[in-house]
């Protein structure tokens, strides 16, 4: 399992620019707008747990 994970990560690293990926993720997570849908998604999962 670990070997497979390492293989997948190596394949991703081959095609994805790690610096760009880090800066993209950092821009998204520092955008305050991103946290609004995330909080609503978590609330939605609680609604679902109650109605199901």
């Amino acid at each position, binding site marked *: 399992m670990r070997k497979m994970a390492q293989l997948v990560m190596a394949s991703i690293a081959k095609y994805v620019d790690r610096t760009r990926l880090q800066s993209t993720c950092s821009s*998204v997570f520092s955008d305050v707008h991103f946290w609004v849908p995330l909080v609503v998604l978590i609330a939605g999962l609680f609604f*679902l747990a*109650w109605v199901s």
Partner: protein
Amino acid sequence: MGQLSTGVITRSTVSVERMRLLQRLGILCGITAGAWLGAAEVPTKLVSSGLSPFLISLLMVAGVFIGRWSLPAIVHGTSSISSDVGNTPHLVIWAVMAGCLWSVANTLTIFAIRDLGLSIAFPLWNTNAVIGIIWGTLFFHELRNAGWQRWGAVAGGAGLMFIGGMILARISAHQISSVSAAKGVTAALGAGLLWGTMYIPYRKAYLSGMNPLSFVSFFTIGELGMMTILAVHYLGGIAHLLRQIAGAYHVMFWLLAAGFVWVLGDLAQQYAVKYVGVSRGIPLSNSNQLWGLLWGAIAFGEMRTWAHTAAMGVIYGSLLMAAGLVVISLSVADEGEHARWREAAERERSRYDIDADFVCSSLQGKSSAPRKSKTWLDWLLVIGTTGVFAWTGSVAHWPAFPLNWTAVYLLIAVALVLLALTAISLWKITRFN
């Protein structure tokens, strides 16, 4: 990327004729979205008895996944998708988040339909328009510089929708047991909240210049991923899930078809949001409420067993909500408001370091990159999709459900005419950009 000077989008101008043309196109897309999003719930209704809502939602999302990769492959080709991602890689994360919101909302709607019926549940989750207006105004400068008349129209329309929704919620409490009604109303309103919030990523994508066809391709990864997690968790593990899927092979076609029909409506909705914004595009596409009422009441005869006063209440409540949607839709954005939209686009460009030409072209419904030809992957996706529908269709059972066939043919014909008009207009005016 982003080498042009700051403020270039704010200072850019779109001719008044082009702006009006794009707004008219956005309105047509919104109306078509309503017809197809309304029709998407019909196959779900046909097979709802005896199946878990999680299984229904998962199979529907599988149909959505197929549609959201094959339709963009037919129209633009997958190479355009990779070019869009190169310009706006951050939107992949936003699209996946939007897809997760969609999946949870869609599952909630199935519970709502089960507990309340199609005709009541629809208007309740359409409160997502009000949520969308709030986010559009707060985050994307929609309705800024809009003047008191436009603000009044939007606030008045939202008020009408609220009153209509309350009438329907009251009727549901009288027709259905109180526990079912409470759960059904919570599920429908919860779906409204999630779908209303899902428009934050939509608007972000289109202010940043991403093509709607590229956005939905990544959106659907979030959808299928989240829905698979939910189905595995709630249905008792992978083995149980696979057993239930195998047991539902005879209705799989209907659920995949529901997902595919939803994609057609959603694509029209994406273009509506792009060209008239969240605060107008979503109320327009939420005319699916009326289509839901027509399908539920006329084609399925849901109200046959109801008292006359309750049936009239549903009609009055839906008409009030529809009037609210029309009022909101008629408050068209002027140049002052457009300038504030461009400010929001400039903010996105600057935050995520996007090429200014890419954003400017997209705001005018044009592409900054030359059109690419189709690849083997595009044809493989189209052939695969056709194969899946042909196989599931060949083993599908026709559900034993009484239908008013005249109404069914009429509703399908109107939806097809709207789709054809929208596709031709999108091609002529924007080449699907």
